[in-house]
């Protein structure tokens, strides 16, 4: 059984979280640069220019890209042949999150659902982290991380379609969600679509779809073609960068599909704002 020290896990996760708040990853930068070059609306182009300048400045001065430094969301795959010594994996991730958000001067954004008081003093600074665990073969710990802002979560939606609605139904639902969202989720956005499974599996898949490198091909050729078809339709909506009107509303559509019940067709749409802050480490 391979062993990883608790302190080492905390150190690695903390470094990743701090870096992600100030450095936009290359895939997001490339997608934004391409949108800037191709955008036809002058107003939207000037917005895209500001977004790119912001990314440059944030990295240079190590300032948070956005004041909404998000909730910390993790997808963690733990190998059956690896063990963390000196504490639990969950504690290590929460500890790393708290330290990174505090020391990086990031915002604590977790609060009570009803009275809305900030939980930084009783639960922890920006805690709890949102962690999705999976057990896999091997002796590694694989961690995907995203700082997920509230504006784009607020427009995300899930439903269960009738099987007869099929692909057309999925496409129409995605279009409806993005059209209703308009300027609110800080376009140009990335659209994660989770299809199939049960209600919650679709939702989780739509979140995980956002972790893929923006614009990378879907390994399933049928889904790859479907992503491109939806992308083209969404960019006809005319919403544009920050909703000012334009041709580049969506940078990429990413789909994850799961087997589902014979009676159901669950679909979830999770939206990612243009500040697509995500990272991936393997220990």
């Amino acid at each position: 059984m391979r062993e990883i020290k608790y302190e080492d896990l905390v150190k690695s996760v903390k470094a990743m979280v701090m870096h992600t708040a100030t450095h936009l990853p290359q895939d997001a930068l490339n997608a934004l640069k391409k949108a800037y070059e191709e955008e036809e609306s002058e107003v939207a182009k000037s917005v895209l220019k500001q977004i790119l300048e912001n990314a440059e400045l944030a990295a240079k001065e190590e300032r948070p890209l956005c004041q909404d430094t998000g909730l910390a969301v993790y997808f963690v795959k733990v190998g059956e042949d690896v063990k963390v010594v000196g504490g639990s994996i969950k504690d290590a991730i929460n500890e790393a999150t708290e330290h990174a958000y505090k020391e990086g001067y990031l915002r604590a954004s977790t609060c009570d659902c009803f009275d809305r008081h900030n939980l930084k003093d009783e639960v922890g600074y920006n805690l709890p982290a949102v962690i999705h665990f999976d057990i896999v073969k091997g002796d590694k710990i694989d961690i995907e991380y995203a700082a997920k802002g509230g504006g784009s979560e607020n427009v995300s939606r899930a439903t269960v379609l009738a099987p007869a609605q099929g692909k057309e139904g999925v496409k129409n639902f995605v279009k409806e969600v993005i059209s209703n969202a308009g300027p609110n989720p800080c376009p140009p956005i990335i659209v994660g679509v989770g299809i199939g499974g049960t209600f919650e599996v679709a939702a989780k898949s739509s979140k995980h779809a956002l972790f893929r490198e923006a614009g990378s091909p879907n390994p399933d050729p049928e889904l790859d073609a479907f992503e491109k078809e939806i992308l083209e339709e969404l960019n006809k909506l005319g919403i544009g960068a920050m909703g000012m009107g334009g041709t580049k509303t969506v940078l990429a559509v990413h789909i994850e599909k799961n087997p589902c019940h014979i009676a159901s067709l669950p679909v979830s749409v999770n939206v990612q704002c243009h500040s697509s802050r995500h990272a991936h480490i393997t220990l």
Partner: protein
Amino acid sequence: MAEYKMTTPLTDEDVEKLKIGDIVYLSGTIYTARDAAHKRLVDLINEGKELPFDLKGSVIYFVGPTPPKPGEPIGSAGPTTSYRMDSYSPILIKHGQKGMIGKGKRSEEVKEACKKYKAVYFGATGGAGALIAKRIKKAEVIAYPELGPEAIRKLEVEDFPVTVVNDCYGGDLYEEGRKKWAKA
């Protein structure tokens, strides 16, 4: 599309000049408030009590900044989504507020209040929090420190770049912009 430099407090004449799509570089004092602070301001108005700042001609920025690093006035400070303030803004506009800065759609009631009392809704670029912070020269919490990032701050800004989204003539840049670029 015109470009203006304006200094707060804003007057009716300032607001009347502005049309959707115009770019304005704001200087002077602006105030920050999000939902929780808006609710308290409206409660004070309803109780007939004094507000922590003068609403007349004021510009309110919807923002919850990150904590400042030592020696800096403010952390990253981009706009938050404005619809959460929709139920409060018309009351503040009625009592003299002239400008709002945020991002995202506003309700018909807010647009109506902009027309009736001559006010304007500006959009700032969401997710450009590091860049925008450069235009904020001073920041001071003047009310509700217990709200943390949601406290009311008095900001001194210089050439703070915003775009007119809703003017006092009923115009809506989000609707017009989208109409112009939508393909059937």
